């Protein structure tokens, strides 16, 4: 049943993905409408699948293969919808939604081998760790999208490009405010998520866990985030450098996230349920 719901969402995910990418080039109202409708339908399917899975297995659902991608996609989409509702910056969708929709596809097709990639969600701490890290990541996605638009706009204005006059690319202060708000909002969630992750890792994993690439990657991301946070708070960096920093931070986190997903085998708890979502 859940597998059917997820598979039913794939055409809408594909339409949304293509339309959002297309919209970034042609900026047609109709293309945006198609992209939005398709992704809202995909979001509804995804929500239904996650709720159904939660109803069936409770929080243990989190340890099912591909589920962490789906939860992450759900959070990114939710944050995009809220940001779009609040700021009406349509081009945010062209950056955030392809990412979210790609995560859905990875989550849906991450069958079979997924059991081996499950994170060891055996306690409330690991669940909370995942939720906070994902929330933080969702906000960083938004900050990244705003930063990218900021850099594009800035580049257009500095180089006298025609897109400097494109009113669908908002004014620099609007983008500046948005990237700053999203960046600040993501920091506490991400920090809490990292702390909870380390607490869990320290108690559950084998000795020498601190040197594992997953932990190093997570700490490096958080360290970079903290430095950027501090520099912005102190007014030491301009908006241009701040935007560039966010783009780099996003790259570091993505790298760390995929590293985490593929290196979790060594940390796996023996009590994990290695059953792919689709087989249920």
């Amino acid at each position, binding site marked *: 049943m859940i597998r059917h719901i997820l598979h039913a969402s794939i055409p809408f995910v594909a339409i949304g993905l293509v339309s959002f990418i297309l919209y970034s080039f042609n900026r047609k109202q109709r293309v945006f409408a198609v992209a939005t409708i398709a992704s809202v339908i995909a979001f509804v399917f995804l929500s239904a699948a996650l709720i159904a899975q939660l109803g069936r297995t409770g929080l243990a659902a989190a340890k099912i293969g591909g589920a962490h991608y789906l939860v992450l996609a759900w959070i990114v989409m939710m944050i995009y919808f809220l940001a779009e509702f609040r700021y009406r910056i349509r081009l945010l969708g062209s950056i955030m939604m392809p990412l979210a929709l790609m995560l859905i596809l990875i989550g849906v097709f991450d069958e079979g081998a997924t059991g081996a990639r499950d994170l060891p969600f055996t306690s409330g701490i690991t669940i909370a760790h995942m939720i906070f890290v994902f929330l933080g990541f969702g906000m960083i996605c938004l900050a990244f999208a705003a930063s990218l638009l900021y850099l594009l706009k800035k580049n257009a204005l*500095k180089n006298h490009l025609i897109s*400097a*006059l494109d009113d669908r690319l908002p*004014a620099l202060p609007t983008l500046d405010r948005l990237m700053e708000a999203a960046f600040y909002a993501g920091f506490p969630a991400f920090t809490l998520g990292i702390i909870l992750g380390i607490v869990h890792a320290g108690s559950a994993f084998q000795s020498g866990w601190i040197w594992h690439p997953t932990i190093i990657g997570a700490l490096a991301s958080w360290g970079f985030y903290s430095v950027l946070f501090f520099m912005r708070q102190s007014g030491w960096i301009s908006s241009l450098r701040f935007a560039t920093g966010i783009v780099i931070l996003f790259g570091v986190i993505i790298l760390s996230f995929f590293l985490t997903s593929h290196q979790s085998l060594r940390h796996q708890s023996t009590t994990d349920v290695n059953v792919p979502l689709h087989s249920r």
Partner: protein
Amino acid sequence: MTHIFIIGLNHVSAPLDIREKFALEGDSRLTVLADLSAIVDEVVFLSTCNRTEVIYSAAAVEKHDHVRGFIQRLGDLTLDQFEQFFYCHSDRTALTHLFRVAAGLDSMIPGETQILGQMKRAFDDSFRHGYTSGNFERIYQHMLNTAKTIRTETDIGKGSVSVGTVAVQLAGNIFGDLDDKAVVLIGAGEMSENAAEQFHRVGVGAFKVVNRSIERAAELAARFGGVPYGLDEIRTPLIAADVVVCSVSSQGYVIDRTLAGDIMEARRNRALFIIDIAVPRNVEPQVHEIPEIYVYNIDDLKKLVDRNLDGRIAQIARGEAMIADRVDELSSYDRRVLSGLIQSLQERVTEIKVKELEKLFRRNEAFTEDGRAQIEQAVNQIVNKILHDPIISLRRELQKRERGSRKIVDIFKDFFNL
């Protein structure tokens, strides 16, 4: 048979000295309209600085010559001059031209909206004075709908096409809201004044005017509630500025890299937008290398205007395709009206014929079946022969005419009580 005609001139067909002879305003425009209405059946008179057009319908072709003669006399033109500067369109091409003009496809700046307002006023004047009938009303509605559709479904009106508007738009993209921004005008000439007007219009309230002559600076500053400065005090207003408009006549740079670096430090790198419309330039090109300073000279602004204009020109073909569809729609509407008319006429005559034959056969029961059939056949032939010519004429209308005439329809309806 009534035709629609347009006789006119515009910025392409005629030079300014000819155009200004026909650019009429107020009462003189209404007088010309009244005079034209005496010549033709329906008339609309459009007169702007770039375009004068007489849009009219007339059954007789010689009336077209009368209108030409009237226009020649109005502008004191010879026949050669008339033929050189005026264009004439009829029926389908006239409608196409009318829709093009209304949509701004025929304007000097494609996609401009002022012309639609002027056309609305011209049609309204004719409607108000009774110089047009329902026929022009339908064309008018089609024209408005077409112009609106083209505007919303194409990018014909997209992008600013004046240097001033582009500059204000760029400022908006750098600073967002301009209400609380400070504009510094370097130079107190006409260009500074125009720039100040543009920014004043979008809500900028704080102006500072820097000029060699402090008196002239004070004069301009007073107009916009600003503060005057001498050119030697330039550093102070620049530190507080958000937008700087340079248009002072100077052989050296008024803002060089050193000054710009110095003031940016004092401003804590707050963004600064410099519009350098002076020739020779007032701002050293290297100033633009400072990350938070955006320098646009007159060529940069013109380049953006040209790009927007090119974008609009590229949309003309799409607009024209939409116009062709709308003109077809209008013509097919006329065809539908005339087809319905023929059908109504045939039904009406058949009804009379059946009724009268029934009466005749009731009164004279002695008629044999054969006799009745012969009478019926004879009546049918008479009716068909009578109807033949008008129906053929109407059908010919369908084939020949590109646009129907409300008057013909009305006459037909009255004539046959349809």
